């Protein structure tokens, strides 16, 4: 057995038994972050915090929510919203956070793309990040079912039908996923299980993987500069803080991160108190009715771009295009053949153009996904969907031609 001496403080007592000083060092005080980064690098911690906010507000909602097709709608729209003290606050916090988390995910992703943070050893960061995107999407979708309003029911109907895989007519699979011929009680309870237990567990695990994958390649920086972290850390520890290219995660990096998180939280609570409506679809305030489709079905804003890739095509081609859109970003580290791990503006005009066309195209798809399916929106949507696919086909070609800088 290890030798234990009498401890002189609680900290020492814990340190003897749990090595907390070593843990603190490895996880924070000697976890080195590059100096040359900007506020966009705070998005990751904002996401981690927003996940925390979702978990806490969700726990409060869970105390009065009833996962039953006859009770769900009223338990949310009547009990939680008007009976439970401050129930409305948890609901608005949960809804607004669920919407904003996607805005921040998109900013976080495009920051990674702009600075080439998915390349040369950082592939696992990117892949685990994409896994987070997929699990967050599933989490958002399953949560959307719970109030059992018209949009819940019909989004559930349309999205589960995607699994029939078009002409393959896998109706048995669709009925298996639903546990019924149409979304019903079995469907609601199993999506409730996914939303409050299984998917959050998976998300926590993948966040752990995402953080672990940052350890070895380290966080990228604004210039894509490749330097020796151990050497720079030694400089910092030797007191040459100005000269060193790194800072410790705690207390130096976090103090700046926490500032950006604070600004975000002010914006967030402003939305929660004054502009929560954007996160709650009015159509979902009608109870689910299997005999009446709402006049116009569309998903939440963050799914519109991929939904629009499904819409302008015939059923089978639409499904293939949609499937492609879901996985396309996973392929990024393998489609980018350039030797450079540099910010886009240093990689040459072709990649800069690719980057901005992608952003504009995704915004166009998002807008077209929201408007009714009529001319000329159908045609604009079709072109934008083809451009999206075309960009992924073009990427290996333009990056291969890129000169090393």
């Amino acid at each position: 057995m290890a030798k234990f001496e009498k401890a002189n403080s609680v900290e020492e007592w814990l340190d003897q038994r749990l090595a907390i000083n070593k843990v603190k060092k490895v996880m924070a005080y000697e976890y080195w972050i590059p100096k040359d980064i900007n506020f966009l690098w705070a998005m990751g911690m904002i996401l981690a915090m927003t996940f925390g906010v979702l978990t806490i507000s969700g726990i409060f909602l869970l105390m009065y929510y009833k996962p039953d097709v006859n009770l769900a709608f009223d338990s949310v729209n009547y009990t939680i919203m008007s009976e439970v003290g401050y129930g409305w606050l948890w609901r608005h916090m949960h809804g607004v956070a669920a919407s904003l988390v996607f805005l921040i995910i998109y900013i976080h992703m495009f920051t990674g793309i702009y600075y080439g943070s998915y390349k040369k050893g950082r592939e696992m960061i990117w892949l685990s990040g994409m896994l987070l995107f997929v699990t967050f999407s599933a989490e958002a979708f399953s949560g959307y079912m719970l109030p059992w309003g018209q949009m819940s029911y019909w989004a559930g109907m349309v999205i589960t039908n995607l699994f029939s895989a078009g002409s393959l007519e896998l109706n048995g699979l669709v009925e298996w996923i639903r546990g019924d011929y149409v979304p019903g009680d079995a469907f609601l309870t199993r999506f409730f299980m996914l939303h409050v237990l299984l998917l959050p567990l998976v998300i926590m695990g993948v966040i752990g993987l995402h953080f672990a994958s940052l350890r070895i390649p380290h966080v990228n920086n604004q210039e894509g500069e490749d330097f020796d972290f151990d050497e720079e850390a030694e400089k910092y520890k030797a007191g040459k803080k100005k000269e060193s290219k790194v800072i410790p995660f705690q207390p130096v990096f976090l103090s700046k991160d926490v500032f950006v998180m604070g600004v975000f939280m002010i914006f967030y609570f402003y939305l929660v108190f004054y502009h929560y409506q954007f996160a709650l679809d009015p159509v979902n305030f009608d109870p689910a009715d299997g005999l009446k489709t709402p006049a116009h079905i569309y998903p939440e804003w963050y799914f519109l771009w991929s939904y629009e890739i499904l819409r302008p095509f015939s059923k089978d081609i639409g499904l293939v295009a949609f499937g492609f859109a879901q996985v396309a970003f996973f392929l990024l580290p393998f489609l980018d053949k350039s030797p450079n791990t540099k910010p886009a503006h240093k990689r040459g005009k072709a990649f800069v153009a690719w980057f901005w066309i992608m952003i504009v195209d995704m915004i166009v798809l998002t807008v077209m996904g929201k408007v009714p399916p009529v001319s000329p929106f159908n045609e604009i949507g079709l072109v934008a969907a083809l451009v999206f696919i075309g960009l992924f086909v073009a990427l290996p070609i333009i990056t291969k031609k890129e000169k090393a800088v």
Partner: protein
Amino acid sequence: MNEERRDFLGKALGGVAGIGGIAALYAAKRSWDPLPSVKAAGFTTIDLSAAEENVLHVDKWRGKPIFVLKKSADMEPNDRDIVIGEDRFHVSIGLCTHLGCIPAYLPGEEKFKCACHGGEFDTSGQQTFGPPPSPLVVPPFKIDGTKVVLGEAGPEYEQMKSAGITA
């Protein structure tokens, strides 16, 4: 330590755990199956004699909407119609064959239009525009006088099915 024995123990453990894992997956799969009470969801009887021409009547069978449309003389007859005496009826599951929204009936234009992605069907339920890949599905039916029983396959339904004109 005998390494052969350790290898053997490892393989035995792997084998037993593998079988257990597969059994657990099967149990998990079965737990997600629709319940027998859901599957047994019975039959719906619709009296067609009450229907009016060019007015869509919507009924419900297994939680799904059922379209009943009595055709007027100007609407083209089709092999998918249910014929009772002189009258022709279009009866189908009212879910778009694209992704399952309920199309609306526009009596003026004599067509169904799906608001979700713009699909259209004629009065025989055949797709005429947009992403739907196939006609509206005719549910299993049996004619009983002026009534149809949904969920039971009568000879007229079997005939449609073998002619391949309904899924």
